[in-house]
């Protein structure tokens, strides 16, 4: 299995340097289609996206990224994800990510 990266050309270039072959550089309007194609690819084990670009995806696709068993989707370039924070708050009852 492989790691795949999708995002702007600038974002994926560095990952290409690390040897990642499935690094898809896409313009914001093309990103959804690129992510969709990578989700269908059975050879992709981990899908790396940039946090702010992931937040810009449609709600349906973001939900799919959360629940899809494979690939494991991970956002890079931001601190804690907001949806994870909300989930933790709902499950535990306390906002564990609060810093102040």
């Amino acid at each position, binding site marked *: 299995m492989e790691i795949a990266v999708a995002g702007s050309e600038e974002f994926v270039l560095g990952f*290409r340097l690390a040897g990642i072959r499935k690094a898809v550089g896409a313009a914001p309007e093309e990103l959804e289609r690129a992510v969709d194609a990578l989700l269908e690819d059975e050879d992709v*084990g981990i899908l790396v996206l940039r946090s702010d670009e992931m937040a810009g995806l449609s709600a349906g696709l973001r939900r799919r990224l959360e629940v899809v068993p494979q690939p494991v989707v991970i956002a890079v370039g931001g601190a804690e994800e907001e949806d*994870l924070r909300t989930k933790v708050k709902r499950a*535990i009852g306390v906002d564990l990510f609060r810093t102040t």
Partner: protein
Amino acid sequence: MVLAEYKPTRSQLLQVRKTLKLAERGHRLLKLKRDALMIEFFQVLERAREVRSNIVDRYQDAAGKLAVASAIEGRVGVRSASHALLQKPELELTTRNVMGIVVPKIKAEKVRKRIDERGYGIIGTSPRIDAAAEAYEELVEDVIVAAEIETTMRRLIEEIEKVKRRVNALEHRVIPELEDTERFIRLRLEEMERENIFRLKRFKEAGA
């Protein structure tokens, strides 16, 4: 559950008591499971926060090094070096079971490479590209660790929420309703018994 659905009979009373006992046992076990999941979650959370903060730092560092390499070598130079790479990181995805939850276990190979394994010539490229490539390899290593930990955390949270909902449903709805039903049948049976005794007394009086 509607009380009228139950016939006030002895066998129904025994059946309700049995169900109530089962519900109480289930409630106790689910509470234990919830607590165990919470302990596991807090252990994973600590590691997840650590890895997440590593990723933030490493990404900034790697992006900075890439910007320097692009500024000095030009984007074309960096891009051509990236296309020359021969080895790609290989992943092996298996699963493991944490208290009934299936979580991924990821093993990676060929993430960190020696300079001569990267595929682009040593002479043709500058140390800035090497530094950027090394920084991104480190980032990819952390991303692999984070992918495993964050997915485990997500699945644990989902399971905690599910177990919590079940515990609450048993505690606030199922068990109180079963207790009400049990009380209703018990009182109705006692009432019927009293009616019977009274009827027998009346028969006895009428016969005397």
